[in-house]
């Protein structure tokens, strides 16, 4: 059996852990740059604030109900997430961390699944004050569906064992839920399935997988098998390495000068190449993209992207930066108010399997320098050693007006108690 453990309203729950004043009150957490609402407390959901809407669209509801609005505090969420995942891992020999707030675990070896689910739930609440729902089933898709039921069914105490429900009962539940509630079924696929007269989860479960495979694709067929209890998506082994690394930001304040963009690109390259080295990969090309706001009236909309291949795979910050800035120079245009910029490192390969290029200059010496910089920054502060074009406090920095302190990751921001 597989269980999906999923934290309810994760970002809001983290904020509440360190601020009891937020308990039982409507709260929302905003995305980067305070743009959209990405986490809502139950109280905020019940007054009709929708997921993903821009802040300004919900402003009247927020004012009317005195909803507390917070910027996102990713250092805090990442720390709490890793604590949760480590606690859950004590219950299993095989865990797949699927996202910041959910993980699949293998329940093999546990006889009483109801008990183990209740124990996990209790432990996460007592130890970290994280409310969770647990869905259990023979496959990932069913575990995920069980989790969805557990969230909706208030009298189930946040636990749903799909394998213990009778076929008749579970079919009745599946009949009530629309097909887009199934894991892996998105907006576009829902439309396609609707055209084939598949509306509810039950409709999908009862469809002919072979027929669907020929009409749509094999992935949908796999979902159908999984709904019927046949495993097609096994738990992933270990951490999967990223295939590409994207670092981008919407600017808190529009940037028009070239120097500002150089600073931004430098910052992104430093961040992305560190991620690259941390997962032991090399990349073979970099994309740089910039764009202005399509919504700003009276200005010309401009966006561009450029891809620059390297002569050989590398993770060297200096080299990647040099190429990136060349690219920026090509796509940069004067008199544009840029609102977003980013870089993508792609064609990643494993460092260990890399082939040495006969015509590529050996960068090993430079790499040592980069590793030493990484080591120093890791030991002291992430910006102790910087490249000269990397700004300390960028003018285009993120808007985070209502961010709570980094209670668990910065000595300077610890909770102060009388």
């Amino acid at each position, binding site marked *: 059996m597989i269980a999906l453990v999923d934290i309810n309203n994760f970002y809001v729950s983290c904020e509440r852990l360190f*601020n009891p004043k937020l308990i039982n009150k409507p709260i929302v957490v905003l995305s980067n740059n305070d743009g959209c609402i990405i986490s809502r407390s139950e109280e905020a959901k019940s007054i009709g604030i929708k997921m993903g809407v821009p802040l300004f669209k919900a402003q009247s509801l927020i004012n009317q109900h005195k909803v507390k609005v917070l910027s996102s505090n990713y250092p805090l969420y990442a720390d709490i997430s890793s*604590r949760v995942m480590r606690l859950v891992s004590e219950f299993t020999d095989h865990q797949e961390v699927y996202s910041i707030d959910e993980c699949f675990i293998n329940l093999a070896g546990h006889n009483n699944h109801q008990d183990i689910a209740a124990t996990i739930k209790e432990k996460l609440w007592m130890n*970290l004050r994280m409310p969770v729902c647990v869905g259990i089933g023979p496959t990932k898709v069913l575990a995920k569906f069980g989790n969805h039921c557990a969230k909706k069914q208030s009298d189930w105490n946040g636990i749903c064992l799909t394998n213990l429900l009778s076929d008749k009962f579970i079919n009745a539940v599946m009949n009530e839920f629309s097909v887009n509630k199934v894991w892996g079924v998105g907006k576009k696929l829902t439309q396609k399935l609707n055209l084939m007269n598949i509306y509810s989860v039950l409709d999908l479960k009862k469809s002919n997988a072979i027929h669907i495979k020929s009409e749509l694709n094999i992935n949908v067929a796999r979902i159908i098998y999984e709904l019927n209890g046949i495993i097609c998506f096994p738990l992933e082994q270990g951490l999967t390495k990223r295939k590409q690394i994207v670092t981008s930001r919407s600017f808190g304040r529009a940037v028009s000068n070239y120097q500002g963009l150089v600073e931004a690109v430098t910052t992104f390259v430093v961040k992305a190449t560190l991620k690259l080295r941390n997962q032991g990969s090399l990349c073979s090309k970099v994309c740089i993209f910039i764009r202005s706001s399509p919504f700003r009236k009276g200005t010309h909309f401009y966006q561009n992207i450029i891809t620059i291949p390297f002569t050989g795979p590398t993770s060297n910050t200096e080299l990647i930066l040099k190429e990136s800035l060349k690219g920026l120079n090509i796509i940069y245009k004067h008199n544009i108010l840029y609102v977003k910029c980013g870089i993508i490192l792609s064609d990643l390969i494993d460092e260990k399997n890399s082939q040495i290029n006969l015509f590529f200059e050996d960068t090993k010496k430079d790499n040592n320098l980069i590793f030493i910089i990484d080591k120093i920054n890791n030991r002291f502060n992430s910006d102790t050693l910087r490249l000269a074009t990397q700004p300390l406090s960028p003018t285009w920095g993120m808007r985070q007006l209502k961010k709570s302190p980094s209670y668990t990751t910065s000595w300077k921001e610890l909770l102060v108690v009388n």
Partner: protein
Amino acid sequence: MDYIKRGGFRFGSGRKAGSGYFGEKTKVIRVPASRVFEIKEYIKSRYQTGSTNAIILPHLTPEKSYLNLFDHRVPAGFPSPADDHVEKVLDLNEYLVAKKETTFFVKIKGDSMIDASIHDGDIAIVDRSKQAKIGDIVLASVDGDFTIKILAKHLSQPRLLPANEKFQPIVVNENMQFEIWGVITGAVRKF
């Protein structure tokens, strides 16, 4: 009258052995004069709160990551005789943190717990996985505000006691929002 001695020990005189404050024989020890206060405070804190409270006297501890275990190169000849005796390096985390997933650090402000050796500016260690018992020092939230106090009970109502006579106990009633956030398992300070 030669059985009356001048001075010295007389049988049967003085306090009976073991009848003093400690109920046993006592012993005088020598400590550096400059640290008498500190050591007294340390002993006092042990008596007040049981032995779970970790108070750190200075000059312990190097950090784990800075030293390598087998760092002696042996180009030729005699190997370092110390290599066989390399043991692990002391790590304060190991000493102070029982369960890192559920342990948090908070900063102390004010003197309300000074008699429990928790001072203004200290960093207190809070473990959320510990079940709070009466007499434990806890981090609690009362009506949305955090406070560190000794957990007590009075007529089946929780009560939070300061460790400083200048402060008043906090009486908790049903109308208050009250939650025990975690148990304080130690406090550290730098000089």
